[in-house]
Structure formats: structure tokens, C-alpha cells
């Protein structure tokens, strides 16, 4: 926790009202002024001769990183770690959990699998889904392949025991999983069976001069309760206790003997409960899509709903016979509606109101979707001059606003649309 000026002030002679209060040896007019500047790190702690040891410890603790951020990869860089809270409602989570797929150089189907990884791409609610990171192991042509993968834009976690390979690939800025010696500047994995082993290994490797670590917690033979328990304790030791040994991102590998459904279930829990990297052996598109959708949800900023720009969106080249619809600018609402309109293949204008990213009913109850606002948005859109049919479809959830809207928009006919977006095609079929 950062210390506030007031918290610091309480430890100073001025705050304790003791001897040497406001002595000005720190060149500040009062202890309070010094405390405020110290909180903002504009002055040094050692210029005050009366700073108690207790406060020194607190200040030292406060400037320790909770969880280090690791940036790896060369062509495309991937960031992990840097988290500051235990729960997403406290403060937005910093870096998304990385889903890494394992590729073994000694596998016969290496190329086939790599092709599948490379070809995975889709877009959901404005976010591009793809695989960013590959966990590369095995021996055959590993150096050549690592370079190719990097060139293709992947960041890498490389498992190797060959010091030459490490030396040749260190420029790709990967994370190395190895028991062999590594140059000090590289990102290196601490593999451990349990919490105690992390401390032991960290202290050993840290002494040699390494700085950038990722903890690899073995979960292979553990029940889910033990797995979540260990991950939770590691995160607490990092975030709440600021224990140096644990101030690193955590990687877990999904065990091999699971089917795709079990992989997804375990990975979903790991994603919600503190794993910064999840390594999956298989590339199964349904698993990855479900998992990345979950990640999209968990890593949205809880203070800022996903929203789209409020404006008139055009679909399928609208002309004077186009259909007109209206909804709010909550991203999920917009994309649900937009998806349907696209699939209907009918020229359509979609008016999106400036409703602070709220969904239809929320916006209505918060006065962010009123008949005045709807009228204003429609007027600004100039659609009245562009279309012949003066009909506008409003969300089914706002059926009670029909009369109010008719009052406000006298030249328009108000059609109450369906409640769910997926019912739109049928509604349009029956009404146009």
C-alpha cells in the first residue's frame, strides 16, 4: 500500500508533537509539508534526522513491487504480471493471462500443429483473438524454429537444457525454462512443486544475479483445491505481504491426461484464480475460443463498461428504403444487434445513442436513454432526409416508451422491436 502524507506525518516529530517538531532541517517549512512531499516521492527520506525506524520499514515496504511485470518476445512483445490487487473489483487487472500452446520440435506433426496455431484468429466484441505465445520444447532444429516463430510474431517460452541454444536464442528475449546456466539478463523460470520450494530456489537463483523470474508451479498431480490454494497463497504473499520471493508472474501447465472439456474447466478456474500464464498442450479451437472469451470478460475494466462510439452505423449499403433501428452504445448490445443486421443482409441504419456504455434497461433507468435524447440523436443523424419510410425500430425492452417517443417524434412511426437481438431477423421479416 502506498503511504499517504497524513500517514507519514503521524510518525514525524510534528505529528507526534514532540521535540524537534517543524525543525526545518529537511529544508521544508513544516513536518506536514515534508510528509506530503515524501508521499509524492519529491524529497528523500534520509534528509529528516528524526525519521523513526518503524516508518523507514514502512516506506521500504511501500516502494517494493507487489508483482513484477515481465515483458518477453522480440517481434511482438507480451506483457505478464504487474498485478496489484486480489480482486478485479478493487482495481482493474493489469495484464491478461496468457494462453500459451505447447509445440514440441521432436513431434512428427509439428508443422501441422503450428499451422493450426497460426491460423487461429477471430474477432469478438471488437477484440482480436489469437495465440500470442508458444511454449517451445524438444530438440530438433529448435534454434531455427524459434527464429521462425519469432519472425511470425509469436513470443516464446523455451524449454531447453542446451547452453548453446540458450546463448543463440537469448536475443529473441524469450522466457527460458532450464536447469542450465543462463545469462543474467534473461527471463528465467523457477520450477517448483510447492510454496516452500519457491523460496529456496528463488534465493539461490537471485543470488547469482538474475532479475526476471516466472514461477512455474507444478499442478500435475494435485487436486483442484490444492492448486487454487497454492495459487491464492502465492498471490497473497506477493500482493498483500510484498514478499520478494513471490513477486513474480506465475505459470501453470495443464496436465496431459485430460480431455478438452476438463482442460477448459481447469484452465477457466486457473484464469480466474491467479495464473498469469497457462500452458496448454493441444490446440483445440472451441477450447481456446471459450477460454479467450472468459479472459475478455474477466479483464474488462469494471469501472468502464465496454462501449462503442455513439453515431449512425450503416449496414449493407443503406439507401432511401433502408430500415432504421435504435439502441444504446453498450458494446455487447451493439455487437449483438450489429451481428443480426449483418446476417440479415438488408440495408439498415443503426442509430447508437450516447448512453455511457449502458445496456438498454440500465440506460433507461439511469436516464441515459430518454425520448428527448432519442429525438436529439435522430435529428442530428439527418436520417429524415435520407429515407422514405419514416419508421424506426426501438428495443423491445423499451416498449413502454412508445407513446412518449411518438409524442416527441411526430413524423415518425415507432415500431417496438423484439427483446432479444436474435429475434430481429424474424421481426423484420414480418414487419417490412
Amino acid at each position: 500500500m502506498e503511504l499517504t502524507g497524513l500517514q507519514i506525518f503521524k510518525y514525524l516529530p510534528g505529528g507526534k508533537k514532540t521535540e524537534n517538531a517543524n525543525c526545518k532541517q529537511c529544508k521544508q517549512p513544516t513536518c506536514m509539508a515534508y510528509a506530503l512531499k515524501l508521499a509524492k516521492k519529491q524529497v528523500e527520506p534520509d534528509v529528516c534526522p528524526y525519521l523513526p525506524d518503524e516508518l523507514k520499514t514502512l516506506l521500504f515496504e511501500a516502494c517494493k513491487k507487489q508483482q513484477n511485470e515481465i515483458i518477453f518476445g522480440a517481434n511482438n512483445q507480451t506483457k505478464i504480471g504487474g498485478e496489484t490487487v486480489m480482486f478485479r473489483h478493487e482495481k482493474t487487472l493489469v495484464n491478461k493471462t496468457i494462453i500459451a500452446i505447447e509445440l514440441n520440435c521432436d513431434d512428427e506433426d509439428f508443422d501441422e500443429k503450428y499451422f493450426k496455431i497460426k491460423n487461429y484468429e477471430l474477432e469478438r466484441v471488437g477484440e482480436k483473438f489469437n495465440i500470442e505465445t508458444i511454449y517451445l520444447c524438444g530438440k530438433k532444429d529448435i534454434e531455427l524454429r524459434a527464429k521462425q516463430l519469432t519472425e511470425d510474431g509469436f513470443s516464446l517460452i523455451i524449454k531447453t537444457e542446451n547452453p548453446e541454444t540458450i546463448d543463440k536464442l537469448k536475443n529473441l528475449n524469450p522466457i527460458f525454462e532450464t536447469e542450465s546456466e543462463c545469462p543474467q539478463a534473461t527471463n528465467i523460470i523457477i520450477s517448483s512443486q510447492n510454496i516452500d520450494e519457491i523460496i529456496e530456489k528463488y534465493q539461490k537463483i537471485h543470488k547469482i544475479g538474475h532479475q526476471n523470474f516466472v514461477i512455474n508451479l507444478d499442478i500435475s498431480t494435485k487436486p483442484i483445491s490444492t492448486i487454487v490454494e497454492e495459487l491464492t497463497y502465492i498471490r497473497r504473499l506477493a500482493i498483500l505481504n510484498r514478499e520478494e520471493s513471490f513477486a513474480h508472474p506465475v505459470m501453470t501447465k495443464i496436465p496431459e491426461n485430460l480431455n478438452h472439456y476438463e482442460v477448459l474447466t481447469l484452465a477457466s478456474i486457473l484464469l480466474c484464480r491467479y495464473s498469469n500464464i497457462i500452458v496448454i498442450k493441444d490446440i483445440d479451437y472451441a477450447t481456446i475460443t471459450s477460454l479467450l472469451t472468459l479472459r475478455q470478460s474477466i479483464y474488462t475494466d469494471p469501472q468502464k463498461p465496454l462501449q462503442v462510439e455513439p453515431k449512425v452505423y450503416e449496414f449493407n449499403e443503406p439507401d432511401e428504403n433502408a430500415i432504421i433501428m435504435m439502441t444504446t452504445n453498450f458494446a455487447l448490445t451493439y455487437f449483438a444487434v450489429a451481428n443480426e443486421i449483418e446476417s440479415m443482409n438488408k440495408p439498415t441504419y443503426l442509430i447508437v445513442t450516447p448512453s455511457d456504455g449502458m445496456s438498454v434497461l440500465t440506460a433507461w433507468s439511469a436516464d441515459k436513454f430518454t425520448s428527448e435524447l432519442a429525438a436529439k440523436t435522430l435529428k442530428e443523424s439527418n436520417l429524415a432526409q435520407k429515407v422514405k419510410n419514416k419508421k424506426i425500430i426501438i428495443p423491445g425492452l423499451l416498449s413502454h416508451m412508445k407513446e412518449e417517443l411518438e409524442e416527441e417524434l411526430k413524423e415518425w412511426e415507432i415500431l417496438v422491436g423484439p427483446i432479444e437481438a436474435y429475434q430481429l431477423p424474424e421481426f423484420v421479416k414480418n414487419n417490412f
Partner: protein
Amino acid sequence: MQEKLPQLKISEKIREINFQGLRIGGDASVPFMQENDSTSKPLLALELPFFYEENFPLILKKQYGENYEITDAVKKAESLPNDLLSIRFNIREDRIDKDFAEINDKLDEIFEITKKPLILRGKNNNDIDKKLLPLLAKRATRQCIISFVEDTSYEDILPSLIENNHITVIRTPIDINLAKEMNILTTDKGLDTNKIIIDPDMGGLGYGLDYGFSIIEKLKQVGLSGDKMLNMPIIVFIGEESYKAKEAKSTQYSKAWGEYDKRAIMWELAGASAVIAAGANIVVLWSEKSLLTLKGVIGWN
């Protein structure tokens, strides 16, 4: 190291409801943590529709087979590993009277067939539920969980639930203050605080799951810190929410989205796993495959 592990300080456990041999709630920490002697485990329910509907997602049509019949489905569920059985009385709006009659006919048989602890669910339509839920409350031959009442329906529904000693699910839309308000209003009407389960009315995967996820985490924090009007167990109807999603319904997605049959199950599984990780005490599923998978994974305990 054991002695240095940072422990969660709590003032009070989440209320524990002893229901038909199950312990619902009683959490003394966040999920899966055993500190503070927490023994709470998430419970899984399988939910069956009373009536077959033509617009069910393909994956569920496959699961239900041809000629769906609720009594057969209940029989089948007896051999599945679900902790609870939930029946959704999905009365169809164009044939309300007929459907009511059919429910009346088959209700006794259903209570007879199943030995599982039961959740009885309304239509999610106030007008129908005001008639339906009191009927179910009266006809049930044992204590059930009845879902749900909300601010616009509790006054009509609650008296029969209290009178017949059932557990009440109270639904409030993802808002901690509204949840508290409804808990106070219903207990003022005579509902026992130990017979309330909170339904945070959350969205499924990809459709607002994040809000629900955080509301569950917050409810647990506030409950564990001693708020006696918010420390009730939580239920999530993740099946219903998951199968509203286009991703779980439509076969019209490109290859990258994965095979439909798998994705449609995984859509529910990912959502269910997340709410279990957040702290839901009962998770109500629609897919048997998700039930079996989850039972396997969280049963590694």
C-alpha cells in the same frame, strides 16, 4: 512456511443451510481455501425443462432426444451425479391453462420418482409465477428450493413459501444494495434469514459475466466481514444464461470458433467454472456433459 501464509480474516461465516442432507454455504473463506476451517463446497444442479420447446439449442435437443417427457428425464437424472435437481416449469404463454393442467397431473409422480433435493423454478414471468410458485409450494411433498421472487412479485408469492417451509431464492439484478434491500423487505414479511438464497441475476459467458463475477466476489467479502443481511448462499442459473448466447446456439460460425457441439457445452462450462471460482454455492447447469466434467474436476478434492 505454513505459519507465514497470509490468512483471510473473517468476522462470520456465510450462513449454512441444511437442506435435504446437503450443506449449502457455510463458507469461511474464498472458494477452495481451507483456512478458518472452511469446508464449503460448490454444489451442482442439473436443470430440466418441464415442457419441450422447439427453439432449444441444438446441443440440448440432442441431449433430450426425441419425444421428451419430463418424468422420463427425471428418472434418467437419478443416475447422474448432480447434487440437486432443478425443474423449470416453462409454461408456454399461448397455452397457459393446458400447461397448468399438465403440471398438476404430473407433479406427484415427479416427487415420487426423484430422491434428489429439488429446486422448483418458475417461468420468470411475474403474472404466471404468482400463480405457479404458490401452487408448487403447496403441492411439494418435501422441503424444496423455490425460485424466484423479486421486488415486483415477492408480496404475492412469499406467504405460501413461508407457510410451507421452503427455501426462497431472491433475485436482484447484479447490485449488492438491491440484494440487501430485498433481503430486508422479505424478512420483514416473515421470511427466515436462514432460508434465503441470493440469485445475482447475472449474464452468461461473453454477455456480462464479468459483472456477475464481481458481484459474487463482493457479496462474499461483505458477507464474511459480518453483514448479516448479505451473508446468504448464492445460486447462479448459468445454464439458462449460457444457452441464451448465440455462440451456444448457432452453427453458423467460422472454423476458428470451434466445432458447434463442443463450443455449445464449453460455453456453459467456462461460465460455470468462473462463477464457482468466484464463490457461487449452487450452480445450475443444463448440459449433462458439463455436469459430468465439473463433477470430475472439482471432485478431485
